[in-house]
């Protein structure tokens, strides 16, 4: 068994607020990502997925648990080990109108990391490398883009520049934080297709964060999806299986809502999401769950467990029979 690229165990993140005290945004996440694989994280806005993404990208530190990259614990990386981590892990931001320096030309934005990290001093080589990056992300003809400022580029084009910039570092793991939500609908697919092609050619792994289930299904087709609720991953599995046959009540509810089902929709009891500052004991979904089992769900918090077929659910409805390891589906 090769070491997974990313290995997260019981990851927690607590934010200290002066007024309300400590708020735990991430409450124990378990996840592994193999090299070249895509894991899509879906969840409502505010469920903690962006925080999770930033921690994985090395931009925030985590309060507890373990986050190992390439087998090494990130929080305790030595100075010599930090540099390769910093280069290998990158992120594409959500807002294309903020992630590019408005005073820099496209060429400069791509040349800077090339110059700095690959130590390319010669201008012609620099130029050729930049051209290669632009071609990689589909910004052709290159002459139309290389000397433009961000103000002259559309949202989709800006995101491509962001991707090209990140590729200059030869990353192995890229966190894609809702990179398409601020782009026109008809251009989203094109961007995602480019990202998929890059994955095939360069064997990068992705953590794709989104709240759009249809996009997540498209991007992570053939890979895995994780569903996040209130700072925990409550279901994880292969994309087609999870979408086609969801297990966790929350997953069922959001799929039903996304499909805008009118006959016999699967609905939660209350449409308001509780805030992080008053999460109840036991399963965080229990106040809203239509299949809640009083006495069990509101007492113990369910852990993310394997229920076979590469599926994991954190729900008491799928309590395991320990001796044969098979799930008893309590639908």
């Amino acid at each position, binding site marked *: 068994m090769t070491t997974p690229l990313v290995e997260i165990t019981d990851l927690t993140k607590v934010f200290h607020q002066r007024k309300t005290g400590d708020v735990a945004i991430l409450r124990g996440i378990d996840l592994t990502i193999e090299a070249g694989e895509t894991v899509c994280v879906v969840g409502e806005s505010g469920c903690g997925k962006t925080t999770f993404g930033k921690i994985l990208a090395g931009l925030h530190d985590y309060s507890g648990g373990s986050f190992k990259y390439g087998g090494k614990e990130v929080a305790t990386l030595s100075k010599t080990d930090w540099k390769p981590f910093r280069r290998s892990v990158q992120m594409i931001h959500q807002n294309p109108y903020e992630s590019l320096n408005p005073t820099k030309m496209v060429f400069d934005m791509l040349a800077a990391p090339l110059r700095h990290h690959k130590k390319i001093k010669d201008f012609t080589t620099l130029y050729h490398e930049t051209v290669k990056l632009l071609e990689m992300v589909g910004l052709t003809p290159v002459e139309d883009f290389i000397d433009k400022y961000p103000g002259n580029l559309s949202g989709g084009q800006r995101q491509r520049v962001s991707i090209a910039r990140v590729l200059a570092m030869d990353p192995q793991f890229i966190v894609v934080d809702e990179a398409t939500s601020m782009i026109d609908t008809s251009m989203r697919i094109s961007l995602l297709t480019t990202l998929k092609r890059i994955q095939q050619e360069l064997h990068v792994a992705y953590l794709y964060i989104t709240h759009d289930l249809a996009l997540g299904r498209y991007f992570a087709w053939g890979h895995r999806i994780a569903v996040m609720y209130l700072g925990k991953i409550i279901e994880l599995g292969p994309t087609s299986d999870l979408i086609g046959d969801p297990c966790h009540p929350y997953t069922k509810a959001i799929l039903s809502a996304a499909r805008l089902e009118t006959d016999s929709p699967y609905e939660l009891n209350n*449409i308001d*999401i509780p805030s992080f500052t008053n999460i109840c004991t036991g399963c965080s979904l229990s106040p809203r769950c239509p299949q809640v089992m009083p006495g069990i769900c509101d007492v113990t918090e369910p852990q993310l467990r394997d229920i076979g077929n590469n599926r994991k659910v954190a729900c008491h409805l799928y309590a395991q029979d320990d001796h044969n390891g098979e799930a008893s589906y309590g639908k």
Partner: protein
Amino acid sequence: MTKNTRTGTDSSQKNRLLDIQDLSIEYRTKRGRLQAVHKASLRVDAGESVAIIGESGCGKTTLATSIVRMLPLNARISHGRILYRRSDDEQTRLDTASERELRTIRWSDIVMMFQTSQSSFNPVARIRTQFLDTAQAHEPNSDPQEILQRSKKLLELVYLDGEAILQAYPHELSGGMKQRTMIALALLLQPKLVILDEPTTALDLITQKKILELLNSLRETLGFSMIFITHDLGIVTQLADRVVTMYAGSVVEDAPSRSFFTSPRHPYSKGLLHAIPKLDAEFEELYSIPGNTPDLVEKIEGCLFAPRCEFALGMCRTTIPSLDEVEQGRKVACHVFGINGKSDKTSSSGGNA
């Protein structure tokens, strides 16, 4: 004072609540005149729900904002008119009406909920104050108690605890609750037309579904017409009777919802529908429409979509197609698939027409 055109009570006209005719709006920018909307026509009947779809820069928000005349200062209606039927025998021209008259129409007849509705509440006032202020601005002699009663009822219609919400401050409510409260506030004066700009973008999936159901049931109970702007085609199927597609400032297609989704006519509509992943469709490789939206400051000859259109003919690049009715209740602006073109069987011919 008021510009009224008394039109005859023609039975087909009676139902027509809003009639936008050949409207053109331009912006004055540093780089020149930007044609945001070009000869757009749109009709909304009483009780109807119309969706305006399109992508950034297509002019949908500009068009909708022009109905309530809340365009920014550098915008100008350069052509066309907006007719609003205030009552059975009175039609007002909204594009030329005075500010005074507009103020009587805004909120009591026509309401517009902007995209940033959630921050439309005054953070230092209780919700009840905002309901009272709104009502009293239009009906200065009404009884506050009666207004509050009405407000409570409306809040209950949107599944909120009326008493609790009225007492609360905006920051005590969640995003979904604010959106619903805003809807209740919008309906306070029983408007005839509600315009919504991206009503569900900032909401999570579960709340979004509830709001859509709400809007539909409210429409049935209170009988208002609705125009909503969105880029999310999913909610269009739920909410709209008709779909109007805009591209680069022009209306390119105007069709009943069902026929739009089953057989779109305009190449842009087709492209749009193909570019959106669906949750349950067979897994297919989707494709984006190649190219980019045109720069609206430059004067372009012919159909604005031609550079990106796989069916473009010679005449597409020289003459702008007009929005014509191709069949009952359905209009398309296209030389190839419009009234003078072939049927919607796709066979691209790249030669000269």
